[in-house]
């Protein structure tokens, strides 16, 4: 087995080894058991005291969502205005300008919703102040928002019949103080020792071997990059994201970033089993998610390692794989692995250019984001999977001749309606968005805009179509990676993706929490021999089939016109 593949397997192995103990710790934190991190509780109490919050006050699902949405709105307003006026604020050694209104709108939302779709470049578009106090701040709170929402669902699944689902502020604050903050510090330290900058100085000047003088941007990046991955955010300190040598200096940082971004999503799956005391149920979910990942991963690595057939035809050696758009220090296989992981979970950071990956890898990247539930982002991955479980429970319940029930609660029209709405949302946002941009491009190529639609795409044809499809898919999945090659830093894209981001974030959080909350308030039905077990392999396969079929049916024509057409045209 070659070293690159071995590195990938080792990285995944380390992730699992860390995820298991972490999951036990998470459960302790959310149950309120005693843990080593209890030294944080005076600080937490102080926060609650200042804010006038009673963390013991039980909330129902609606109160949870009200709290979540309110605080998110506050953060949005804060972020929007600070970005707008960042040039007038301190910590701006490079003298970067304030953002335009549409860019600030897009950036604020995109970081708020854990997406980090960056329509700017870190070196010039933001200041150290906004990087730290807006973007990194949002990276913490958006991840904690997703996790807190998931804990509400955990609680709802665990209880037999209740409307009291814990306190949102308690879940939220503890996620930050007990989980994100300590882990980020450890990760940041690893980065610093491996050469990632952590300085407040402005640009450095380097004279290259050819004698040119080059300005090198830097800044307090290490801490930012830690939460960027740990919180499945993905927004880079530098424009080139984790392909930038200062954002990802060597293989150790590569592995650390890789482990950091997927460890919480995997640990949350295990935590689900521990929290609701149904380990087998969670294990099956983990198995299905892993199989899903492998299905996407193998074609990606295989295509990248095999190299581009067109280049091979030119007689150029491709022993290293398809190296266009990749960092030599990571290579084809590792970049293939990264591209899969970063798209199935909602990180969206990159260590190589997705625009340059092979068509089939591009297809896998798109599918990863369309599915968005194989591990998935912090908290939200399982929430997305939950919706598919609901649909699978409904159909399979009928198939065994019983009114569908899940975790001891009947699944009825109201829940099905919410689940159907959430399922409907993704194809709606992705397809309508792409249709809108295609329409504008075809019919108004020369519109008198800052960037003419005709010059949006760097690549014509199928690949250009993939670029547009990718942008909306990434926005809807709150992923934030870009296919790039798309002129997206302008009014049309800032605004349209901005709305896709908001809708693609909050409805898929509210939906599952609402379903879980409504179901938990219903009468508990004990299991009988006629009850369909949801912790069986059969049900796991059923859920997998539902996920694959629904996704395939929604996106097949669009994918056929993009990556599939490109693949067969090679």
């Amino acid at each position: 087995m070659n070293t690159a593949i071995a590195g990938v397997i080792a990285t995944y192995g380390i992730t699992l080894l860390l995820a298991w103990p972490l999951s036990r710790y998470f459960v302790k934190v959310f149950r309120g058991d005693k843990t080593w991190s209890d030294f944080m509780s005076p600080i937490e109490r102080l926060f609650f005291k200042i804010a006038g919050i009673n963390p013991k006050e039980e909330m129902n699902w609606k109160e949870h969502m009200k709290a979540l949405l309110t605080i998110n709105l506050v953060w949005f307003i804060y972020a929007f205005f600070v970005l707008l006026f960042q040039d007038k604020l301190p910590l701006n050694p490079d003298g970067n300008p304030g953002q335009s209104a549409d860019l600030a709108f897009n950036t604020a939302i995109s970081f708020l919703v854990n997406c980090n779709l960056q329509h700017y470049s870190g070196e010039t578009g933001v200041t150290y102040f906004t990087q730290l106090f807006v973007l990194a701040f949002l990276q913490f709170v958006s991840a904690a928002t997703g996790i807190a929402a998931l804990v509400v669902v955990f609680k709802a699944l665990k209880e037999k019949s209740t409307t009291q689902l814990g306190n949102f502020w308690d879940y939220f604050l503890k996620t930050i103080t007990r989980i994100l903050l300590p882990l980020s510090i450890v990760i940041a330290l690893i980065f610093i020792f491996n050469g990632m900058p952590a300085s407040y100085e402005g640009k450095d000047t380097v004279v290259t071997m050819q004698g040119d003088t080059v300005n090198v941007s830097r800044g307090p990046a290490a801490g930012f990059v830690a939460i960027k991955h740990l919180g499945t955010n993905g927004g880079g300190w530098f424009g080139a994201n984790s392909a930038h040598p200062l954002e990802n200096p060597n293989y150790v940082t590569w592995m650390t970033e890789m482990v950091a971004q997927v460890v919480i999503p995997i640990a949350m799956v295990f935590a689900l089993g521990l929290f609701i005391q149904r380990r087998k149920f969670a294990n099956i979910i983990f198995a299905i998610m892993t199989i899903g990942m492998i299905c996407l991963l193998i074609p990606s690595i295989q295509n990248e390692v095999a190299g581009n057939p067109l280049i091979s035809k030119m007689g150029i050696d491709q022993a290293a794989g398809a190296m266009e758009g990749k960092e030599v220090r990571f290579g084809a296989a590792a970049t293939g692995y990264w591209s899969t992981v970063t798209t199935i979970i909602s990180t969206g950071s990159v260590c190589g250019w997705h625009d340059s990956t092979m068509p089939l890898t591009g297809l896998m990247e798109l599918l990863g984001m369309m599915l968005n539930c194989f591990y998935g982002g912090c908290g939200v991955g399982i929430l997305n999977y939950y919706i598919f479980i609901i649909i699978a429970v409904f159909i399979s319940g009928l198939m065994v001749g019983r009114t569908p029930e899940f975790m001891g609660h009947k699944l009825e029209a109201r829940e099905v309606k919410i689940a159907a709405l959430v399922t409907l949302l993704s194809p709606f946002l992705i397809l309508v968005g792409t249709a809108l941009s295609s329409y504008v491009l075809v019919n108004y190529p020369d519109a008198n805009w800052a960037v003419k639609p005709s010059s949006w795409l760097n690549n014509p044809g199928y690949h250009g179509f993939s670029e547009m499809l990718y942008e909306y898919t990434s926005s809807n999945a709150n992923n934030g990676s870009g296919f790039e090659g798309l002129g997206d830093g302008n009014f049309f894209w800032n605004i349209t993706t901005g709305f896709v981001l908001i809708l693609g974030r909050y409805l898929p959080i509210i939906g599952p929490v609402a379903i879980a909350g409504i179901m938990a308030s219903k009468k508990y039905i004990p299991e009988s021999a006629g009850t369909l077990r949801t912790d069986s392999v059969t049900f796991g396969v059923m859920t997998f089939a539902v996920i694959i079929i629904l996704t395939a049916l929604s996106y097949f024509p669009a994918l056929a016109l993009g990556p599939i057409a490109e693949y067969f045209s090679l």
Partner: protein
Amino acid sequence: MKANNKLFPKDLVMESLKESFVKLNPKLMIKNPVMFTVEIGTVVMLVVTLYVMFTGHTDQGSLGWNIAIFLMLLITVLFANFAEAIAEARGKAQAESLRKTREDTPAKKISQVGETFTNEVSVVSSATLRKGDIFVCDPGDIIPADGEIIEGLASIDESAITGESAPVIREAGGDKSSVVGGTKVLSDHIKVRVSTEPGESFLDKMIALVEGASRQKTPNEIALTILLASFTLVFIIVCVTLKPFADYANTPITIAAFISLFVCLIPTTIGGLLSAIGIAGMDRALRANVITKSGKAVETAGDIDVLLLDKTGTITIGNRKATNFYATNGVTQEEFIRLCALSSLADETPEGKSIVELAGKDIVNKLSIANASMVKFTAETRSSGIDLPDGNCIRKGAYDAIKKMAERVGNSFPTDTFKQVEEISKDGGTPLVVALNNKVQGVIELQDIIKPGISERFDRLRKMGVKTVMVTGDNPLTAKYIANKAGVDDFIAEAKPEDKMKYIRKEQNEGRLVAMMGDGTNDAPALAQADVGVAMNSGTQAAKEAGNMVDLDNDPTKLIEIVEIGKQLLMTRGTLTTFSIANDVAKYFAIVPALFVASIPALQAINIMKLHSPETAILSAVIFNAIIIPMLIPLALKGVAYKPIGASALLRRNLLIYGVGGVIAPFIGIKLIDMLIAVFF
């Protein structure tokens, strides 16, 4: 094709075909959102076809192809309508055959003057009878309407309704007072009060349900409709956004192709069959001779967790039978048997008869009870017997009753017999102590005879996840013995009517659904409380009003069948939904390459079925989509077979047949159709 002949009788098919066109009315179609969108598509295609016909433009494809697509869409809608119509027609026919039994019959009505009824009898038509009217029936009369006997007792032939030829006894007062219109009085004279308004009897309600007039969607059906509607919306999005995508790719797509893609993708198979499945479920219940008051009741039956069953008549054969004679020490066995037989010769109760039977003809033929006087059983004495002309009194009765009787005159109860009494009780039997002139002579063992095959049925129920509970008036010891022997999961001993109610409430509070069967007025509250209450047709009017189903056969084990019918109903919906959605995979592989191959030749690679041409590919998919509906009508009407193999195994099985099968079948079907129509294109 014999089975099909039964499913589709010729006259019903003709009627349903007509009905299929009537149902094209958009006002009716809109109730079914999936098929309604197909109808809209059909109308659009009609316009396109006319446009091509009159302008001769070919930018929308050739005229022939457009006509073909239009016709296939129309046929799709008609097939779906036909499915619903045939299900309705079958239900109606079934109900009609029951209704025939109550065709206009002459009724001997007692005329009423003010509040009082006179004794005058006038013959009127049964159609004019109203609730509260009173009529009389004599031997040979057909009972003109459902009612309750208020005076008299009669033997009645109910074969017209139940198919059971043995006559039944109905009498005023008590639990066997109700009579059903259409049945025949064989003997005696009864006075009956009409209990329902014409058109409101259960049968009439049932007919209305099947005819769709008052058919309401059940909760599961509503949830499924929502899901199907959302799938339809997804495919609307897919098809509408395909237009700008195609414009970007410089690929003109004809309207016919768009509509075909849409119609093929939306779940027309399940959408077209959904209401047929619901109607067929009630129809199947009717065929099992069960009248349901709502479709919901049938569906709920499939969810039942707990089944309350009366011991007598359900688990055991009606009555206890004598199985052994045990004489007290000092009494010869022969003498004891003689006494037992003597005491029972005039006893008409089933127990008494069984004692005579067990005694044997040899002994019985030698006995005579001329001039003897029979002492009937009363609740007070709890014993019965005979006073012989020679002055001897034989009594038989419950242990404590006879003991009291003996001890009152100073006779002690023999210890060996006492031991025997205990022994019998422990084995689930009932001891019947016999005394001669207040002196204990021995004990007769009566045993419940468990119905053959009943424990297999309970086994089947257990595998379905249904817990069976036996309700009996027996003492806990006896009840436990029989419960074990019959294989029920739980029992309620020494049950009073309110105990049933309590048990049902308890189970319901724990979240379980309970079904029960009952016939008496005192069962009515429990029948109403139960999620599925099945009243026997022979039961009182109150019981029938309280329950949500009526079993015409009075068969207490019918609940098992009802549970299966309910499960089948849900399963048929679930499996056909899966099948319908799974079909889409193949349809995509047929249509998507056909749409784009002209401008993107590379996409020929996903034409994995190697279909002849884009036109034939699309047409084949549409044809497949249409003909799958009538092909599945038999399945929708008969229901998917239920096998009690556990939920997970059942899911595996159905997933394999309807899921995997649903993916593969259209690949084969579409390819075959394409090969066929390639001849014409």
